């Protein structure tokens, strides 16, 4: 199949619409998708082309997707199976993961989620496949190293053919006092002799000539496997005169012997012309035959050596080849790492988009921290109770066994209880229970505080404006928060004679409350809060002044922003001032701030009297 166009994602979903949508999303993301509506079709296709990623709907008609999952993994264990589940509950997804799925996506599917999950799946598949390949590679290497090791030791203890044979022939020639000699080696086919060594005058002309089986003296000897003693070559028809003609040498008398190893002819040795001019005798032939078996063994050994050498060379070249492959594989690993990075970059790109929508949800996000741990704590609480209930039921059993005086049961349950207690970490659990409840309560308080503030923020035109006496409002607010103020500050009132303003009394209460609480919170140990009211230019001014920590200049532009806070995490919502600002703005008034770090802060609210 063509690698370039073969699909790399398989979708199995009985819902045609879903198939089309998923295919569309993934194709846009650059994947090649093949989609199927039935299990049989999908498995069939997967067998022919096991894709790296399989997208599997958990509830295909009657067939449960989880049951089908192993079929894919059996065909290709490296494949990442991605589960699509319509269930809000994650239980099925968990079950799927236990059955070998790598991840899940919950319907309704967000395109980014799907693409990211598929991308992670591919990454994982590639890593798995790569690792498997590398392991195979390593095993191959180890085998090769073993082989090389074995052959090298063999080769170094053997030797090269030609120098040795030369030595042997010189030895032979001297022993028989011959003018010339030659050694012929049978080739692999067993049909042709090659002259391996030729000594004596004009010998170089004979080097590397070949002689057919049955041709000339040597050919006869090899064919007949018998030694031959030719006192006078001119009288022997077997002698091939072409040799002398080619070499310019004159052969008078010769001895020839086959070289046999385990009954096989490996070569022929010839000794030519005694130096003293006499013909060879029977005695000379006997001498030759006495050591020709050694020569035969030497040749055979040399041949083996040669073979080994050749196979070693072949092996070496294979090693080289493999080394090249390996370095390429390494390059591939590096490349896949680069691709991984690339994939990650793209993942980030789309997570960014996913995040955008979520973050746009707005202000309510601030409560996600407390909601998060409240929910999680409630889950844990349930688990704690389950653990404790398990323990309690065992204890009840234990008690009844105790009453029955069932010794065996008692010791068995005691052991179990001990184990169970350790496993559930009973002590830790019990001591954590109080903290868990406490923290959860803090969370709910925080949420309700935020919600209250947000309500004040959002409560737009509830009710009609009415004439409000701000001095009275301030008194009222002070009684409400007296508890928070009294330990922190001396409250000094400088209430002037002021006209009423038109407004919503409850909302204005909220403004003063927020400012007063901030003032108290700005005081580290103990200080003073001055409240002054005055009339000025058709406005009523309310000044709330503390001698607390003050606001650093760089924070001043941000204090009215929603969620801006410098208070400890989980303490301030950062909504107090923005709420106050919103309310004052609605009343067509304004807020002024004046602050010095280390000296204190003065907030002044101006509200129009409406005249």
């Amino acid at each position: 199949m063509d690698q370039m166009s073969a699909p790399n994602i398989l979708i199995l979903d009985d819902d045609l619409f879903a198939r089309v949508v998923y295919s569309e999303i993934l194709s846009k993301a650059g994947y090649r998708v093949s989609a199927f509506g039935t299990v049989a079709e999908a498995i069939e296709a997967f067998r022919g082309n096991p894709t790296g990623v399989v997208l599997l709907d958990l509830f295909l008609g009657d067939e449960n997707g989880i049951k089908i999952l192993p079929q894919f993994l059996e065909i290709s264990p490296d494949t990442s199976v991605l589960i699509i589940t319509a269930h809000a509950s994650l239980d099925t997804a968990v079950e799927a993961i236990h059955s070998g799925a790598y991840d899940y996506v919950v319907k309704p599917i967000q395109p980014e989620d799907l693409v990211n999950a598929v991308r992670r799946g591919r990454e994982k598949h590639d890593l798995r496949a790569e690792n498997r390949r590398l392991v195979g590679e390593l095993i191959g290497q180890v085998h090769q190293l073993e082989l090389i090791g074995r052959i090298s030791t063999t080769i170094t203890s053997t030797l090269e053919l030609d120098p040795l044979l030369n030595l042997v022939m010189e030895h032979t020639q001297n022993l028989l006092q011959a003018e010339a000699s030659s050694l012929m080696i049978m080739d692999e086919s067993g049909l042709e002799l090659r002259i391996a060594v030729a000594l004596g005058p004009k010998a170089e002309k004979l080097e590397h000539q070949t002689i057919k089986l049955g041709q000339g003296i040597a050919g006869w000897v090899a064919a007949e496997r018998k030694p031959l003693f030719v006192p006078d070559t001119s009288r022997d028809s077997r002698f091939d005169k072409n040799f002398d003609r080619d070499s310019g040498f004159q052969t008078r008398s010769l001895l020839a012997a086959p070289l046999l190893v385990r009954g096989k002819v490996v070569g022929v040795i010839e000794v030519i012309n005694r130096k003293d001019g006499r013909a060879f005798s029977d005695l000379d032939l006997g001498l030759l035959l006495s050591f020709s078996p050694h020569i035969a063994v030497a040749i055979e050994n040399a041949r083996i050596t040669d073979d080994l050498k050749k196979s070693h060379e072949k092996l070496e070249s294979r090693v080289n080849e493999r080394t090249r492959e390996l370095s390429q594989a390494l390059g591939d690993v590096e490349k896949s790492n680069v691709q991984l990075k690339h994939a990650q970059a793209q993942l980030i790109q789309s997570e960014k988009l996913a995040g955008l929508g979520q973050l746009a949800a707005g202000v309510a996000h601030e409560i996600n921290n407390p909601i998060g741990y409240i929910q999680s704590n409630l889950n844990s609480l349930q688990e704690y109770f389950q653990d404790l209930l398990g323990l309690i039921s065992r204890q009840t059993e234990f008690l009844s066994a105790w009453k029955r005086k069932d010794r065996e049961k008692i010791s068995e349950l005691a052991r179990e209880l001990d184990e169970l207690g350790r496993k559930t970490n009973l002590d830790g659990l019990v001591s954590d229970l109080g903290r868990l409840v406490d923290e959860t309560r803090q969370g709910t308080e925080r949420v309700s505080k935020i919600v209250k503030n947000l309500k004040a923020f959002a409560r737009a035109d509830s009710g009609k404006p009415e004439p409000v006496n701000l001095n009275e409002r301030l008194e009222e607010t002070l009684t409400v928060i007296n508890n928070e103020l009294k330990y922190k500050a001396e409250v000094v009132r400088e209430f002037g004679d002021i006209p009423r303003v038109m407004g919503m009394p409850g909302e204005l209460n909220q403004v003063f409350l927020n400012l007063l609480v901030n003032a108290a919170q700005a005081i580290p140990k103990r200080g003073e809060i001055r409240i002054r009211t005055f009339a000025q230019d058709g406005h009523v001014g309310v000044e709330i002044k503390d001698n607390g920590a003050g606001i650093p200049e760089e924070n001043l532009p941000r204090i009215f922003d929603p969620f801006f806070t410098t208070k400890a995490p989980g303490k301030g919502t950062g909504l107090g001032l923005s709420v106050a600002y919103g309310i004052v703005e609605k009343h067509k008034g304004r807020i002024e701030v004046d602050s010095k770090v280390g000296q204190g802060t003065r907030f002044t609210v101006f509200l129009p009297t409406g005249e």
Partner: protein
Amino acid sequence: MEKAYKVLLVDDEVNVLNALARSLRKEPYEVLIAASEMEGLNKLYVSRVDLIISDYKMPVHDGVEFLKRVAADYPDTIRIILTGHADMEAAIAAINEGGVYRFLTKPWDDQDLRITIRLALEHLKLQRENRALSAEVHKQKQILKDLETEHPGISQINKDETGAILI
């Protein structure tokens, strides 16, 4: 029994940390917590952390800086963001510069979180295997190379008195 992996939770809100630690207490990895970036860096330095789950916006240091630092100093550590903050810019910066594996939002689903961590650790395991294998292949390659240079071929002759070659 020593657990094979260490997961570090970093969040400036202790209540969040405690809740997370509770929901992960039966998981097959060790859970460490840090209530600030400083504490987080400390924990990273002291113990070999495999996965870090962090909020990105924390008051003392910029959370993005923190994640960048983690990415630079401990590139082998998987980074996951778990956040409820509405600060868009910081989120994008954290994702782009901190090289995170996944972006999760608060409130979180305990089970989803547990699965995500497990999958991430599995991913990490694969990556580490891959790296170890590559290193091994490197090593073997070197051995083969050495062998070739060390082994010049056949140069020695061994024979007995008769001239027979010894094999």
